[in-house]
């Protein structure tokens, strides 16, 4: 419990010198990052900059080749082995993943389950919690994302924005310490983006620690405590959104912003 007691000091997420290659292409060239408890961090950058890959390394959906990544005092996918790291077995990885929520660009709701069942699946299968308790919590979560009247609908009967809000509720049902968002609004029709961002903003206000890969500069400006601008597998610059987005120091950031804002 000491981790909780001094939790305000210890960062929720920490990474240093993370490297990853796909074959001969190095997509992450030594990333450092630190996210405090309750902090919201947005990762910005052109496609191919490595930001989604980095995010997927955090809950070990991707492996990395070198570096350290800690979530709440634990390494996620590895344990020390001499002076190197060795991959954990799939059972241990699964346990550590269960404390990290993830929201995907393509929603990835379980297509054969209703909205309510989607939200209940994790706690029931992974944590083996009692159905009645899980169901009450799931209904409350769906209510919180504004879908109380959609609990019995299958994903195919929901709009993209509704599906993404169910996906957020599904991730929250595991009561995670950290939420990862991988371009959560990129696959949505423009008029549906607002609903999803509103739910995320509410979540940030409630004190959830969030790492968000996004192209929504407006969201980053209003909600993020800090933004990281990535390009070519490195962090080009980071800081409060007011600094990075309004007065970028680096030429690459300026070029990206002028293109996006044009």
């Amino acid at each position, binding site marked *: 419990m000491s981790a909780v007691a001094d939790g305000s000091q210890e960062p929720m997420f920490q990474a240093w010198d993370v490297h990853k290659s796909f074959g001969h292409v190095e997509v992450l060239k030594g990333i450092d990052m630190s996210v405090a408890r309750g902090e919201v961090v947005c990762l910005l950058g052109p496609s191919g900059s490595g930001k989604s890959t980095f995010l997927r390394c955090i809950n070990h*959906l991707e492996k990395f080749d070198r570096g350290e990544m800690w979530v709440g005092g634990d390494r996620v996918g590895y344990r020390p082995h001499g002076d190197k790291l060795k991959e954990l077995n*799939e059972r241990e990885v699964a346990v550590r*993943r269960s404390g990290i929520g993830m929201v995907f660009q*393509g929603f*990835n709701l*379980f297509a054969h389950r209703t909205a309510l069942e989607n939200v209940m*699946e994790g706690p029931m299968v992974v944590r083996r919690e009692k159905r009645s308790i899980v169901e009450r919590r799931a209904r409350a979560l769906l209510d919180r994302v504004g879908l109380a009247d959609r609990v019995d609908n*299958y994903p195919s009967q929901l709009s993209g924005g509704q599906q993404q809000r169910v996906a957020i509720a599904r991730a929250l049902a595991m009561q995670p310490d950290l939420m990862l968002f991988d371009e959560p609004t990129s696959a949505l029709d423009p008029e549906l983006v607002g609903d999803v961002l509103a739910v995320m903003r509410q979540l940030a206000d409630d004190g959830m620690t969030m790492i968000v890969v996004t192209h929504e500069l407006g969201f980053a400006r209003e909600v993020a405590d800090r933004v990281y601008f990535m390009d070519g597998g490195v962090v080009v610059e980071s800081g409060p959104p007011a600094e990075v987005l309004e007065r970028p120091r680096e030429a690459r950031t300026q070029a990206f912003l002028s293109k996006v804002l044009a």
Partner: protein
Amino acid sequence: MTSAPVTETPARPAFARDARVVLSTRHPARWAMAAVVLLVVAGGITQVIGNERFQWDVVGDYLFAQPILQGVARTLMLTAAAMAIGVGLGVVIAVLRLSPNPILSSAAWTYSWFFRGTPLLVQLLFWYFLAALYPTIGFGGASWSANELISPLTAALLGLGLNEAAYMSEIVRSGILSVPPGQAEAASAVGMRRSQVMRRVVLPQAMRVIIPPTGNETIGMLKHTALVLVIGYTELMTTASNIYSRTYQTIPLLIVAALWYLAISAVLSVGQYFIERHFGRGFSHHRVSRRASRAARKGEAVA
């Protein structure tokens, strides 16, 4: 991008008269073809019923005779058991085939190649004559005589089941591959282990793709069980054959067998429809969950 409202109707042309009614199109050729087909069918039916060499009275005598009914029961049992072996082993082989381990996946490939590449009849005979290759079969300390172990029933189950597993593994594999990888990713992100991802998320959705060809396989298996005639397991076909070799009423007994096969495959098709509907849930825009549709019906009743 220009969306100027088009409100004005086109000007009435100078040669306009009263607008005409469109006649429905007639299809005389369709009617003629239908008449020809009906004539042929009617002719065929009268031929079959009128031809006394079909011996319909003998068919009637044997259709529900005790040995035939027992044969039907054994055919059903053999179909179910062989399909159970085929599906169970087929899932295992499909999973092995998709394994990242090259030895496992090529072993699975070789299995499919071997059992699909040799005639089922040959396989059945091989299993039946296994004792010629291995007089005794042993595990650890225990050993049994192959002649005792391999009865017509065990040979039939091995032959039909192992052959079916090769086909089922391909069906299951295509079903698993049809589930988008994001589904498994989302399940792992929630913290499910690989086996849970498979059982709870991938396989239930793969079923939608797996069920229709499996229905075909089951109906195919029903008829393939007739091949066990060659190793003398007395299911429906062997029973019919035993009777007609004694009484020489070959045609009527073949009809008895055929009628039973037809009846059972009709029942299986109906069952397939309901299983398909069950596993199709979530994939059709028209159907909502049972609870939601019940609520909707109640709502209508109230309104």
